[in-house]
C-alpha cells in the first residue's frame, strides 16, 4: 500500500484549494463550490484514516456518510439562499452583498 501520508497531503492540498476558492471567488455559487471541495477533502481524510487504522471499526465510514449528507443539505440550503438574494439584489457577487456593514 501507499503510505498514509500521501493521502493526508492530498487531502490537505484539496482542502487548501477549496479554502482558496472560498476566499477569492467573486461569484457566490463558486464559493459554494469551494465549500464542497473542502468537505470532500475531509471525506478523503476520514477514509484514509479508516483504511490505515482499525478496519473493523466502521466509525470512519459512518462519519464519511454523515458528512456527505450534511454537505448535500448545506448546498441545497446555500443555493436556496443565493437564489433568494439574487431575486432581491439582482447580483450574485459576494462583495456586493454587504448589507450587514456598519
Amino acid at each position, binding site marked *: 500500500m501507499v503510505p498514509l501520508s500521501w493521502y493526508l497531503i492530498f487531502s490537505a492540498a484539496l482542502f487548501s484549494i477549496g479554502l482558496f476558492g472560498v*476566499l477569492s471567488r467573486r461569484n457566490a455559487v463558486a464559493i459554494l463550490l469551494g465549500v464542497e471541495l473542502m468537505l470532500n477533502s475531509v471525506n478523503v481524510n476520514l477514509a484514509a484514516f479508516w483504511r490505515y487504522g482499525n478496519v473493523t471499526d466502521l466509525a470512519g465510514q459512518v462519519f464519511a456518510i454523515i458528512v456527505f449528507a450534511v454537505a448535500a443539505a448545506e448546498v441545497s440550503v446555500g443555493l436556496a439562499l443565493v437564489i433568494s438574494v439574487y431575486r432581491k439584489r439582482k447580483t450574485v457577487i*459576494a462583495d456586493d452583498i454587504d*448589507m450587514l*456593514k456598519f
Partner: protein
Amino acid sequence: MTTETLIWLIPLPPVLAFFLIVLFTNRNKALSHTIAVGAALLSWIGSMVVFVRAVGVEHLGEHPFESSVNWLPLADSWFRIGILVDPLTAVTLFFVAWTVLMIFIYSIGYHNFGQPEGDHNHKGLPPHGATIEEHGHKHVVPSVEPMYSRFFAFIGLFAFGMFTLVVSDNLLTMFVGWEIMGLCSYLLIGFWYAKPSARDAAVKAFMTTRVGDVFMLLGIVYLYSVTGTLSFREIFTETTLHTLATIPSGVLGFSTAGMIGLLLFIGTVGKSAQFPLHVWLPDAMEGPTPVSAMIHAATMVSAGVYAAIRMFPLLSLDSQTMSIVAFIGAFTALFAATIALAQNDIKRVLAFSTISQLGYMIAALGIGAYVAAVFHLITHAFFKALLFLGSGSVIHGMEHGVLHTGNHKVDPQDMFNMGGLKNKMPITFWTFLIGGFALSGFPLITAGFWSKDEILADAFAHNLPVFITLAVAAFLTAFYTMRQITLTFLGEPRTAEAEHAQETKWTMTTPLIILSVFAIGYGWVGIPEHFPLLGGLIPNWIHEFVGGTLAEHPEALDFNIVPLLTSLVVALGGLGLGYLFYRNVNSAAEDKLQIGFLKNKYYIDEIYDVLLIKPVTWFADKVVYQIMDKGFIDGILHLFGPGTQRIGTSIRNYFDLPVINRFFGDGSANATYWSGVKLRVLQTGRIQQYLMFALILFLAIGAVLYFFVLA
C-alpha cells in the same frame, strides 16, 4: 394634718391660682379673682393654724417645726431643702398672711370689678372711664381694668414667692422666693406696660435689686464654700459660727462671718431700698396701688429685712459689719425722711417713708436690737399697708372726681389738688389717720409707738449717734405724715375734683378697717415690762416669743425715761407742727419746704445716670457691641464663611470640572465613541473578508498555542 405638712402646703395655693388663672380663667374676671382670693384665704388659714400652734409651743426656738427632704444629689450626700417655723417665721407668717389677704380683697375693688368696660381701652394702659346712660343723661364712671385677671395671676405668683421665702429653712430656697418676688415686682410695676414711665420704672427696679442680688449670691456661695451647708439650723450652730468668726476673710479686716454677712446684707440693701440702692422704690409707685402696698410696703421690702434678721447670728459676729449695717440703716432713715418732706405725690411720700422706716429696722439690727427690729417689721407692715391702701382709696376718690369734671389734666395723686376729703371719704380718713399716727408713733394707742419706742430705747442704751439720728428722723416722719394728712384730708377742697370725690366700695374700705385694728392693737403685745404704769400688766409677749429664736435669749432693757420722753416729744411735736404749718398752705408755691435738692431726691438719680448709666451704656454699645460682637466675633464668622466658600469654589473649578467631569466623564465617552468610529471600518459586511480574518487569527493563535503552550 401635722403642722409640718401644713407648712409645706402654705405656699401652694397662690401658685396654683397663678397657673389656673394664666392657663384657664384669664377671660373670666369673677372666676379669676375668686380663685386668687380663695388661694390667699387658704394660705391665710394655713398660716393662722401654724401660728396658733407655734405660739402654743414652749421654747419654740429650741425645737422649731422643721422638715426637710433630699433634693440635689451631691457626690456622696444630698443637698436638703425644707421648711422651718421658729418664732421669727411664725410672726412673719402672721403679718404676711393678713396683709396678703387684705390686699387681694382690696384689689377687687381697686380694679373696679363690677364696673362696665371702658369706652376705649388701650392695650397696656390703665382704664379711664366708661360712659353710661343714666336717667337720660350720660356720665362717665370708672371702668373695670381690662387686664384684671393678669393682675391676680401676678400677685398670686408673688404671694407664692413670699410664702416660700418665709417658710424655707435654707438660703437657697429663700433666694428662690426672693428672686420670684423680684420678677413679680418687675411684672407688676410695669403692669401698665404701655406707659413708658412704668416700663422704665420696672427695669430700674429689677436692675437695682439685681445689683444687690448678685452680691447676695456671692455671699451665699461663699458661705457654702466655707461651711458646706446652706441650712439655717446647720449654720447657726456654735461650732460653725465660731469657725466663721475666727477665720479672717482677707479683705479689710473682716472675718469670714463678717464678709458673708456683709455680702448678704447688700442683698437686703437692694431689696429693702436702703441707700445707695434706694432709687428704684419711688419710681416703683408707677404700679397700681395694691402693688405698692403689697410689694413695697408689707411684703417684698420686708423680705429684705427678714433676710437680714434671719442672718443676725452671723452678722453679729463681726463688729465692723454691724457698724456698717447700723450706719446704712440710720443714714437711710434720716435721708429718706428729709426727701419725703418735699414730695407732693401722695404715694411718693409713702414710698420715702417706707425707705425711712426700713432704715429704722436695719439700724435696730445693726445695734443688736433683734426683738425691736422684728417688732417694728411687723407693725410697719400693717400700718404701711394700711397707708398705701388708704392712699389708693384717696386716689380712687379723686379719679371719680376727675371723671366727673372731665378735666384729665388734674393729677389725682397730687396732694395739692386734694383737701377736705375728710368729709367726702370718712372711712378712708379715719383709717388713714390711724395709720399715719401709727407711723408717727402716736403714744400708747398705736402699734408704731411701741415698736419705735423699743428701737429708740435700744439705740439710747447702745449707740448714741444712731439714737440721735433716729430721733430726728422720727420727728421728720411725724411732720411729713401730718403734712400729708393735713393737705389731703383737712381744710377745704382745693379743686373741683376733690369736691366731687366720694368714698370707695366696701371691698376697699373693709381691708382698711381690718388693718387699722392691727395698727392699733398689735403694739400691745410688746409693752416693755418696766414701762411706767402699763408695764407688767400684759406680759411682753413679743420679747419672750421672738427672743426665743436666738440661741441666747436677749435681755430685756432696763427702763430709761430719756428715750420715752424723746419719742413722745418728737411724735407729738412733729404731728402738731405739721398740722400748724400746713393747715393754711394751699398750693405748692406757698410750701416753704419745696427745696430743690429735696424735691429732686438729692439728684441721686442724675448722679447715677452720669456716673454709672452713661458709662455702662457707652461701654455696652461701643466696646461690647461694636468691637467685640460685630468686629471680633462677626469677623471670625466672616472669615469662616467666605473662606469656606472660596475653598469650595476652587475645588469645583480645579478638580471637579476638569478631572471628574471632563477627564473621566467626557473622556470615557469620547474614547468609546472614537474607538467605535475607528473600529467600525472592520465591519464591511463582506463575508470573504470576515473569513480571511478568521483564518489568519486561527493560524496565529494556533502557532502561539503550538509553540509556546504545547511545546
